[in-house]
């Protein structure tokens, strides 16, 4: 058995919840060789023994290691109920390789680190762990997934754990938070149980789009589906959810497949239907009452009543539309969408439309949008008309379309050839697309030589996405005068926008340095973030934008920024915990107060060491 060092206790960035009187103790015993790490040395050359821990013990209850002992570190701790502090048995604890840090020895462990199963005292231990960066994750049937460092009951990000050969990290407290339970009954309009009807509970997410982990599944700001329980023969349902704020609904729309019971008022012509209903019984989600639940909370009597409404027909004629047009009815604030049929002469019809308020959307194309290349069939005409559909329906509508706008400009580059420039890709994306360019479809641009044109843009708020034609490349920039069209949303009205200047270059910016903790030691956990110095750019920063970056600190205490657009930046080291709210304006405001200011010139590089501030006592 390898000799464990008796090094001094170091600070540690990850803390468990306040579940015990004196708080958890996390000890790090680091052997001297580890402290000799220095910036610029590669991982393998930094004094770390390259232990290929192929032994990879196999574990079963009671938290034992059965494999042959080889050199390596030890990570141990206890899994507890995050609310009560009670040790939890029957928890599968996994030592996961921290995907954000490159760790050759970790990968060399055959198939990855082992699992353990806790017993009554909730304790676990991983022996012979190869030096590297890890996360401790825990799962138990009936609990949402948990991990060391995830303190918030509603989510969070697992803390990274760096370990060297013969290190012993003990006393980790890994909390699992009981799910909240929402349950109730669904009845139809006659009060009879509604059977096999599925509900949707959407959880409000903080919008940490770049943190796409098990702990904060959905990146987008807004409401994301959490669970879809269905009713039994008594009309009862039970939903198990994480703590948080929820919208409950019974959806009958194109977004969710759902069983549509037969309404009581339905006759042979199927002239009644159930419609999407939000808790506590409204059709519009804006009027819904959010349901807020804490970890382990039991929320009964969240009852629903199906709402049946008559259906009717909607018809009319499109004026000045092209031969290829689409019509659809939508309900603002819902996922409801019903496509109509357009016949020769522009006559359109919708059948079986539930009575209610709609927006009739019309789009006219030059070619059929589903036959030709996406992005090459711009919307030439459009309209959005609010209509009210009563029991007798709506007929003889006369809908005129309006022309769309075109955004155009030039593409320039200090170093790319005209041929390369012509392969630049540009897309106009809605500012409401919270993932920015990440999920943008192929742009509706038309790049010819050094000029581009994006026709078919309806009035609204947009951003431009620019994909340079080479790799590596500096993030593409687009400005109209002094306005940054890539990172700051801009309005499009009825007029065309011209004179946009797009700049692409293969000369990338670079930035990096060493991260130290408040004691001056190399930090091995946490993040380094860069964001614009101008607070005006902090409003609704786009994921995937070119002026925000967050990188994890490498195992050897270094960081390396991705290519950024040129400009002035704030640079700071932040803890895992602080990153839970990245990149919100409150967080940026706090961090800016302690951040370093740096200037990145086109194609330039900076080397800047940063310091992780001391953890505030909790």
């Amino acid at each position, binding site marked *: 058995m390898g000799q464990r060092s008796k090094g001094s206790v170091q600070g540690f960035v990850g803390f468990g919840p306040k579940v015990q009187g004196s708080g958890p103790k996390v000890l790090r015993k680091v052997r001297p060789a580890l402290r000799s790490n220095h910036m610029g040395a590669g991982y393998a050359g930094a004094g770390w023994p390259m232990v290929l821990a*192929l*032994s*990879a*013990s*196999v574990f*079963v*209850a009671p938290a034992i290691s*059965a*494999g*042959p002992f080889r050199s390596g570190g030890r990570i141990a701790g206890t899994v507890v109920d995050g609310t009560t502090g009670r040790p939890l*048995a*029957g928890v*599968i604890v996994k030592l996961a390789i921290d995907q954000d840090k490159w760790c050759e020895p970790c990968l060399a*462990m*055959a*198939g*990855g*680190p*082992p*699992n353990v*199963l806790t017993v*009554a005292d909730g304790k676990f231990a991983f022996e012979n762990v190869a030096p590297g960066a890890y996360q401790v994750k825990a799962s138990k*049937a*009936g609990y949402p997934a948990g991990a060391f460092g995830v303190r918030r009951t509603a989510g969070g990000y697992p803390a990274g754990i760096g370990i060297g050969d013969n290190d012993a990290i003990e006393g980790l407290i890994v909390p699992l938070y009981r*799910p909240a*339970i929402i*349950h109730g009954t669904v009845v139809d309009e006659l009060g009879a*149980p509604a*059977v*096999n009807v599925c509900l949707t509970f959407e959880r409000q997410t903080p919008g940490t789009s770049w943190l796409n982990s098990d702990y904060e599944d959905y990146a987008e700001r807004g409401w994301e589906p959490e669970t879809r329980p269905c009713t*039994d*023969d008594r009309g009862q349902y*039970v939903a*198990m959810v994480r703590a948080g704020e929820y919208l409950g609904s019974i959806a009958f729309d194109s977004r969710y*497949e*759902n*069983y549509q*019971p*037969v*309404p*009581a008022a*339905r006759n*042979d012509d*199927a002239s009644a239907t159930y419609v999407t209903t939000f808790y506590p019984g409204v059709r519009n989600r804006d009027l819904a009452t959010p349901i807020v639940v804490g970890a382990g909370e039991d929320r009964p009597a969240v009852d629903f009543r199906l709402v049946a409404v008559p259906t009717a027909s909607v018809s009319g004629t499109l004026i000045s539309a092209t031969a290829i047009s689409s019509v659809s009815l939508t309900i603002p604030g819902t996922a409801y969408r019903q496509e109509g049929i357009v016949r020769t002469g522009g006559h359109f019809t919708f059948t079986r439309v539930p009575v209610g308020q709609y927006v009739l959307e019309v789009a006219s194309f030059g070619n059929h949008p589903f036959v030709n290349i996406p992005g090459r069939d711009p919307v030439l005409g459009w309209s959005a008309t609010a209509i009210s559909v009563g029991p007798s329906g709506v007929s003889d509508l006369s809908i005129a379309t309006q022309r769309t706008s075109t955004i155009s400009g030039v593409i320039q580059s200090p170093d790319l050839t005209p041929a390369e420039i012509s392969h630049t890709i540009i897309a106009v994306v809605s500012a409401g697309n919270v993932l920015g360019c990440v999920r943008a479809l192929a742009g509706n641009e038309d790049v010819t030589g050094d000029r581009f044109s994006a026709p078919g843009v309806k009035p609204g708020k947009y951003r431009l996405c620019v994909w340079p034609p080479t790799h590596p490349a500096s993030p593409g920039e687009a400005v109209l005068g002094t306005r940054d069209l890539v990172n700051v949303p801009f309005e499009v009205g009825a007029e065309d926008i011209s004179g946009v200047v797009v700049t692409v270059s293969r000369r990338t910016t670079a930035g990096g340095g060493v991260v130290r903790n408040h004691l001056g030691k190399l930090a091995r956990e946490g993040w380094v973030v860069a964001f614009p110095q101008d607070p005006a750019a902090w409003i609704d920063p786009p994921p995937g934008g070119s002026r925000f970056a967050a990188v994890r600190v490498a195992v050897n205490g270094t960081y390396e920024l991705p290519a950024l657009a040129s400009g002035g930046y704030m640079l700071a080291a932040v803890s895992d915990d602080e990153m839970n709210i990245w990149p919100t304006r409150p967080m940026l405001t706090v961090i800016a107060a302690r951040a370093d200011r740096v200037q990145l010139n086109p194609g330039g590089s900076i080397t800047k060491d940063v310091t992780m501030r001391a953890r505030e006592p909790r």
Partner: protein
Amino acid sequence: MTRLRYWAIIVAVTAVVHVQAVRDTGGGDLCVTVVDQDGTPVPRARVYLDVRPYASTVEKSTDDDGRVDFAGVPSTPFEIRVEKPAYIDTVYGRLLGLDRGRLVAVAAGQRRAVVVTMPRGAVIAGMVMNADGEPAAAATVTARRWRSEEGRTVLSDLGGLTVQSDPFGRYRFFELRSGTYVVTASAEALWADEGARRLGDGSAALVRVDEFGSMPGVVDANQRNGVTVGAGERHEGVNIVMKRRVRQMATIEASVDQPCDDEVGQSLMLVQYRDPAGVDESSDRRMWPTQENGRFVFRNLLPGRYFASYDYSGCGKGRSGDALVEIQGAGVVPISLTPNSSASVSGKLVVESPQGVVTPRIRLDLDGEHSLNDAGPSFRIQDGAFDFIGVAPDRYVIGLLESIAGTSWHIRSVVVDGAETIDGALEVRAGQQIRDVIVTVADNRRLATLAGDVELPVGVSAASAVVVAFPSDRRYWTPGSRRVRVTLIDDDKSFKIAGLPEGKYLAALVINPPVDQGWDVALLERLEPGAGVVELGPGQITTVRLERRRSATQSLRANPPTPRPPRASSPQTDASRPR
């Protein structure tokens, strides 16, 4: 709704049809009334008219009286399908394990009224506790029903009857067909394959940790016990306590004598036998090895019975080698596979036809009780001689996979060691070479037909009864027997069963049979005393009249278990008498 659709696969009905006065208008009119097992109208049920093969569907829903009218129904025959949550999806006229419902046609100007009985689903509910004595949330709870399928009683997992316990540890099955169910619960803890991935040198013992439990009283699957529910009944409080299982996994290392040089020409496969009546179905069934140091290695094997088969046929080094392996615990089990060591079945194929020519187009098939035949047995035929090689130990029925084009054939005889075995199972043991099997195929025109009409009791419609023909010799009451046949009765009360081997048969009329159970021996035993006897000669068409000889109310409960019959539709058997 997925669950509902899945139910539709195994639906059955009891129904009454009244053909009323013909109306002289274009298109026919159809009135469908849906009632539950008590005869209570079912409002707001969806009724579909499906034109087979599902070319089109018309859908309407029933009113408060459980009734719906279809006007102008085309004369194309269609099936009537009825659905409503909490009820059993029903296809009109699908009885006693038949694979389709009754086709209904309404002639122009005709008006028909159909009453479809759609039973309310039964409920089984309870609680699951984990190994730590706590209510088990998110446990996987499975309900499987004893079901007769052509004479074979198995624990059927048809129906998608798997639910998760809720955060309080509660589970609830509804929309259950009447019958006897076995309920089990499991919670997986550590997966074996995760252990396998992390195993670098194979030296560590792998384990599989999970929790498993079954409802009280289920100690032996062969007892075929469980919770019995009738239509619409509720059985709550079926609680399950799970226990943690730590099972060590074994490894099989197979060495192959004279392996193929060409990897493409070889295959090695390991198949796990599954107990068709077993309550724990957590095992993978088929595995492929990794090659390590010239050996073929199968890891992470739970205790059980396995069959390994190596196919040499692709590289010309002989026939298959195989081995039967019993694994009881951890460790490495070495096996050796050598050419020509596998079990085989060989013999001669005789064609009884005017041409008398054996063509290679005839292919035979081995249908194993454990359905392992696709794991290895390969069929060859040349000059009338055939053989199956790589046959896994099992009980088999020899069948005809492909017949001579343009002609319909059947297997008339399978003689093994001088004894006729066509209506029994052929038992193949490990390494056994069964030779000189004589399989005779004959023109279907040699098969007999039993036809006729029935006399139904007053108030009983043709749609609520079937005719069952079965051999008088009980030795032929075997699973999948070609001599036991069930058929629907036409509206004019006629029936026809073609393709019966010659012999002495019994024929019986069964009224209101269990809705979705196939025949089993218990049913035949109950029918036997009152059934009529008829002798069928080769190629003979025999017409009989089945009429009521005595009235008897008998329970047609499946054997075993014994689901309670629907309250409003006690099954009856009517005696039959050949005309």
